[in-house]
């Protein structure tokens, strides 16, 4: 297992090199003037466009530009993101924890709800619970996140004032920026608890409820459908029939026999969902004014912020490799017949 993990991790720099090189290559299709638009924000500055191009080396050959960037990375400098207005490493540190917290708050409910109702739907196929579950799944899957987000915001914030947008209120903002507030982990909810600030903890969680609900509703549908179909397939197999014929209770047949086998595609999908959430969910973050990594990544891409795009892409590649590694390891846990050492 250790050998397998190390092998996968050794592959990581290569993946990152490939991704960033490809991105650099694609960016060369844009003219230096277009790439300089990041630094020029007003027609009044246009007369100095050429000087900006020169200053940032935008006319240099692609390998030279890439080599300069790579040299900086090796020195631990990922560059400066104009969209975030801070160094890329700092931007990742600033935006990633919020996304990570939101992911944690969202992912496990997705997993629980998706698997539970997927199984329920399969077991009670074509019965009322199945119809309701399928209806919920289809609406969730087809509903644009900005519509759902906006509706939730209008009702629960605009009308009821229960769950405001943003990361926290002004009071919590002041509190978490006091010198006495220690940032042990960078995760605000955890830090609030460790600082024994129950009120701030509740406030931070309250701000994550609506984005989490939006993500839950739109993301759970796929997991639910996959669990259902995988479970249905398993339930129709001979070994399930045999188990039932042996007189095993239905609960045991479902939990111990069918579910264990049905979970393999669920694990694959879950890892992809997890990566998707960690990579940031732009629209949800925008609607709820949630300062996550997705919004930054997309803004960097829109504004041709090369260091920003490369930084966020590297993070995404890293997460992808790690999530794949974890899901490969989970396969072995779910199904002992699968061995990951080879």
């Amino acid at each position, binding site marked *: 297992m250790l050998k397998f993990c190390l092998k996968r991790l050794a592959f990581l720099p290569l993946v990152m090199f490939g991704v960033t090189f490809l991105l650099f290559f694609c960016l060369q299709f844009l003219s230096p003037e277009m790439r300089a638009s990041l630094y020029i924000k007003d027609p009044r500055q246009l007369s100095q466009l050429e000087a900006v191009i020169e200053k940032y080396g935008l006319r240099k050959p692609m390998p030279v530009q890439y080599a300069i960037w790579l040299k900086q990375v090796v020195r631990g400098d990922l560059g400066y993101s104009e969209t975030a207005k801070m160094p890329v490493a700092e931007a990742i540190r600033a935006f990633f924890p919020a996304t990570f917290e939101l992911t944690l708050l969202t992912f496990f409910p997705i997993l629980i709800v998706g698997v539970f109702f997927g199984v329920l739907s399969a077991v009670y196929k074509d019965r009322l619970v199945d119809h309701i579950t399928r209806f919920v799944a289809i609406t969730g899957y087809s509903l644009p996140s900005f519509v759902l987000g906006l509706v939730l915001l209008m009702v629960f914030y*605009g009308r*009821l004032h229960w769950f405001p947008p943003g990361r926290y209120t002004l009071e919590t903002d002041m509190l978490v920026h006091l010198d006495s507030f220690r940032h042990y982990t960078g995760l605000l909810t955890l830090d609030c608890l460790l600082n024994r600030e129950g009120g701030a903890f509740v406030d931070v969680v309250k701000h994550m409820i609506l984005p989490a609900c939006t993500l839950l509703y739109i993301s759970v549908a796929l997991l639910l459908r996959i669990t259902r179909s995988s479970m249905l397939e398993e339930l129709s197999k001979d070994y399930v029939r045999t188990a039932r014929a042996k007189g095993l209770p239905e609960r045991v047949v479902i939990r111990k026999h069918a579910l264990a086998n049905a979970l393999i595609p669920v694990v694959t999908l879950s890892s992809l969902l997890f990566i998707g959430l960690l990579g940031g969910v732009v629209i949800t973050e925008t609607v709820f004014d949630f300062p996550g990594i997705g919004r930054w990544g997309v803004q960097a891409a829109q504004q041709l912020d090369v260091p920003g795009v490369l930084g966020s892409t590297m993070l995404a590649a890293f997460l992808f490799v790690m999530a794949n590694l974890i899901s490969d390891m989970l396969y072995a846990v779910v199904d002992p017949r699968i061995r990951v050492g080879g």
Partner: protein
Amino acid sequence: MRTLRAALSCVLALTPAAFAAETIKNPDTFVYATIGDPDSLDPIWSYDTASHNIIANIYEFLLAYKGSGLSVKDLVPMIAGKVPSKANGLVSADGLTYRFPIRKGVKFHDGTILTPEDARYSILRFLLVDRDGGPASLLLEPILGVNSTRKNGKFDPEIGGRAFAAVTVDKGDLVIKLARPFAPFLTILANFGAMTSKDFCVKNGQWDGQAATLEAFNNPRREAMIPNEKADGTGAFKLERLDKANKQVILLRHEGYWRAPAKLRQVVIKVVDDFNTRKLMLQAGDADAVYGPQMYFPQLQGVPGAEVIDGLQNLERSSILMFTFKMNPTANQNIGSGKLDGQGVPPDFFSDKDVRKAFAYSVDYDSYIRDILRGKGRRTSGVIPASLPGGSEPRPQFKLDPKKAEEHFRKAWGGQVWEKGFKVSFVFNAGSAPSQTIAQMIKKNIEALNPKFRVDLRMIQWSTYLEQTQANKIPVFLAAWQADYPDAHNFAFPIVHSEGYYAGKQGYKNPKVDALIDEASRTQDERTRSSLYKRMQSLVDEDVPHVMLAEGVRYRAQRTWVKGFVFRPTFPDMPYGGYYYDLYKAVK
């Protein structure tokens, strides 16, 4: 179902929203939800509205405008103890030397006292650090007679010496000697050249004020400037925190301010990208003012507890239809075949005045005002806004007139345009609904004149727009100009002087126009200047290098409990943000 609905209604009625209008949320804190985060809070780097709004609340300039004033007469002293004039002897007879007595006892936010040397350093740093694309040229032009501290991209070693000679301290006064008389000079100092602490700057790795080290600090990269988390001005508010992750800037009242301290204790400027979220924040009282573009005006009307102040006229020229006299034909898809063969236009298509006039007679100005400006705009004709000395009162030069448009198209290019037809692209910025509507209007009206006429609409991204403008590839486009300082020169020069930004790009050059603008910038007497600008405008009217469509208005959406708002047309980010020193919150 009816019971459920009734129960839900009861719950909704008992929610805090029902009480929101009665009590003031965060009574001593003002929250402004906007879309633009600051680029830099270093006054010598910043050249964007979002940054400049914050800078103008943290830092102070030598002078300022009184209320909604616009002319030199409306200037009031700030860090300078008096507004220099020939009458008070602080401007020399030749109009070249300005003396600014520096106010005593003014404290920076760190508690240190502002000295005349700080004032001198602030102006020198603004002039000489001079980043590419920055605002330095605004003061370089009047003080040193140049637009850059670099020649052919290389630092001019003589520039430091010249600047040191031009900006001096004498008997506690800051003395600035101009390269040539420059009438708008004082108005620039009401918006640029913020007073900074030399010690603070040096401690933060900035230029030490020595000539020997100047080159190393000239044209820096963004990362080399004062970090955005730090600022030390003399303004009514001090920077408490710039929270990049949450995209908000928090300002706290400066208790040691030289005037009475601000009524607000705290100001929060928060970036909220989505309009609906901003609107809901205004509705909930979590935002006291929000940014909203024209198209969202109806949505902000009637928000409970909020008011919309309409009809605010910024100092700008918006919606100018520009014609490029000589285009770059290389790989230019905007001009089709590049010939007058019905499949394109020649690169100098718009050099023919009849073509320009035909386009001008094809614009439906009234619909533009009615539909896009919500009926709040008015026709305009001049380069200089009417509110400025030398400005023109709205005097429509053109109206929608298909007959006259046809007449000019028939005359254009010796009749070839009408006979062979043409195909040209109208280019506009992605996301600009007004530009798109105008473009569609012009296309419809021109194509209706002759089936051989074709106007293609091309919506392009800002980055592509930059590239094509730089390469002179756009035949006809919509432009806008917002004032750096409230003076006719800041409109006349960029829009119609052959060395100005727009005229330069268009390839428009009229030596008489150039000469009149140059002469007006040197003239101190306002009446003479006005007459020079009026003569310039007559020549421009004759040439039709562009068409002014109309001037619109802006609006401010704020909670009704916000009091003290003064519309200052030259203040950055007006009317959305503001000068927070004016504001306070009260029920009545």
